[in-house]
C-alpha cells in the first residue's frame, strides 16, 4: 500500500515528527515509510522544520553512569567484531557466584534474564555483520559467556563438528588449573566439550556431540584441576556462562531520514 495524496503525506509526516501520531497508526506509518521514498522525504522535511525546536529546551546534564554504560556497550561491539557472527539478540545469561552454581541450575535457568552485555554483543554482531541478510540453512550457534555481566568468551559453532571459543577477556591467572567448557542441555547433566585456553582462542573438535544445541541450551566454563575434571562432571567454580542464541541474521540497513534506527 502506498499513500498518493501529497497533502495527506505531509500531514501524517508532520504529526509523526511532532509525536501526535501514536500507537498503531505510528507503527503503521513507520512500516509504510520503509518502502516509500516520498514518505521518508516528507519526514526528513518535517524533521528539518520541527526538530530544531528541541534546541529551546534547557540542557540537563545526564549522570556519568549513562556514558559508562554506553562505553561498555560499544566496547562490547569492538569485541564482537572478531566474532563476525550472524546472530540474533536473544542472548541470555546471568551472573551468579561460583560454588553453588551446579546445584542451582534449574533455579537460574528459569530466570531467563538477558545479560545486557551479551545482548549488546549479539545486537552489535547483528548490526555489524554482513550488510545483507544471509539466511543460512544451518544457522550459526553463538553464545556470549559472561561473568558478572562482563563478557569473557564467545562460543561459536559455525558448522557441526567443531566449536570455536573466542577470547574476549583473558584470565591470565596462575597456570595451575585448567578451564573446561561444558554444554548443559535444558534437561540433562553437563557434558564436557573440552579444555579451553585462559588467554587465547581455542578450537575444539567435537564430532560426537550428543546434545542438541537449541535455544536455551547453556554453555559454562568451570575451573578444574590441571587436565580437566577428574570425575567427568564439573567440580570447580563457574568462571562464566551464557545461553545459546541462534537464528539467521536478518537486518536491514538504516534508512536515511527515518530518524529511527
Amino acid at each position, binding site marked *: 500500500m502506498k499513500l498518493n495524496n501529497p497533502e495527506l503525506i*505531509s*500531514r501524517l509526516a*508532520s*504529526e509523526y*515528527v*511532532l*509525536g*501526535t501520531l*501514536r*500507537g498503531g497508526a*505510528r507503527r503503521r506509518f513507520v512500516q509504510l515509510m520503509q518502502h516509500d521514498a516520498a514518505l521518508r522525504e516528507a519526514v*526528513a522535511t518535517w*524533521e*528539518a*522544520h*520541527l*526538530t*530544531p*525546536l*528541541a*534546541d*529551546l*529546551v*534547557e*540542557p*540537563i*546534564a*545526564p*549522570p556519568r*553512569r*549513562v*556514558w559508562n*554504560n*554506553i*562505553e561498555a*556497550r*560499544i566496547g562490547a*561491539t*569492538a569485541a564482537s567484531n572478531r566474532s563476525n557472527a550472524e546472530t540474533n539478540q536473544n542472548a541470555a545469561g546471568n551472573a551468579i557466584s561460583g560454588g553453588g552454581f551446579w546445584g542451582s541450575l534449574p533455579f537460574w535457568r528459569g530466570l531467563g534474564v538477558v545479560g545486557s552485555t551479551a545482548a*549488546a554483543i549479539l545486537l*552489535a554482531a547483528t*548490526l*555489524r555483520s554482513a550488510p545483507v541478510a544471509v539466511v543460512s540453512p544451518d544457522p550459526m550457534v553463538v553464545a556470549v559467556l559472561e561473568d558478572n555481566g562482563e563478557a569473557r568468551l564467545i562460543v561459536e559453532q559455525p558448522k557441526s563438528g567443531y566449536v570455536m571459543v573466542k577470547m574476549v577477556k583473558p584470565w591470565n591467572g596462575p597456570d595451575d588449573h585448567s578451564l573446561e567448557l561444558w554444554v548443559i542441555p535444558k534437561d540433562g547433566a553437563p557434558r564436557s566439550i573440552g579444555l579451553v585456553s585462559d588467554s587465547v582462542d581455542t578450537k575444539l573438535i567435537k564430532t560426537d556431540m550428543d546434545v542438541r544445541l537449541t535455544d536455551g541450551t547453556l554453555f559454562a566454563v568451570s575451573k578444574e584441576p590441571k587436565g580437566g575434571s577428574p570425575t567427568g562432571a564439573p567440580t570447580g567454580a563457574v568462571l562464566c556462562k551464557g545461553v545459546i542464541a541462534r537464528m539467521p541474521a536478518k537486518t536491514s*540497513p*538504516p534508512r*536515511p*531520514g527515518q*530518524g*529511527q*534506527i
Partner: protein
Amino acid sequence: MADIALNERLAAMLSRAGIGDKKAFAELYDATKSKLFSVSLRIVRERHLAEEVLQDSFVSIWNNAAGYATAKSAPMTWMTAIVRNRSLDLVRRPRLELQDEEEFFTLNLEDESLGPQDQLVQARDKSRIEHCMKGLDGEQLQSVSLAFFQGLSHSEVAEHLGRPLGTIKTHIRRGLLRLKGCLES
C-alpha cells in the same frame, strides 16, 4: 541548529565515529548529551527512562554513524530525531502518570553543571523556528508545544487544556500548516 560551524564540527565527529574513532564519539556525546537528555526527559518524565533512551540512542548512533552521511540532515537534527523517536516509543506504552508540572520539575530536573560544550550548543542560533512559533495563535502554540516538548497525544493535550479533542486536533493541524508556511517562506 542553524549554527553552521557547530553542525560542521558535529558532522566531523560523527564521520570519525563512523570509522570507529571512540574519542570523537566521546566528544560528540559531550557536546550533545545535555540537550538530548533534556529532550527525552521532558517526554518520558522519569530520569531512569531518559537515561535508558540516551544510552540506547547513542549505541544506535555509534552503530549507524557510518551511514549518517546519507541521511541528508543536520547532525543535531538526525540525533535529536533518534532520541525523540525512542522517547515517543517508550511513552506509547501505558501512559505514565502525568504529574503536576511543578512536582515534575522538583522531582526530575535537578541539574548537574554544564560544561563549555553544552553552553556552545545552547548558544546556537535558533531564531527561525522561534520566530515562526511566535506566529501561532495562543492555543495553537500551546497545543503544538505540549505535543512536541512533553510528548502529549491529542487527547492528553485536550485534557491538559480542558478543550474538546476535535478542537485540539484542529489547532495542531492548523498550527503545523502555519509553521510550514512560515519556515518555507
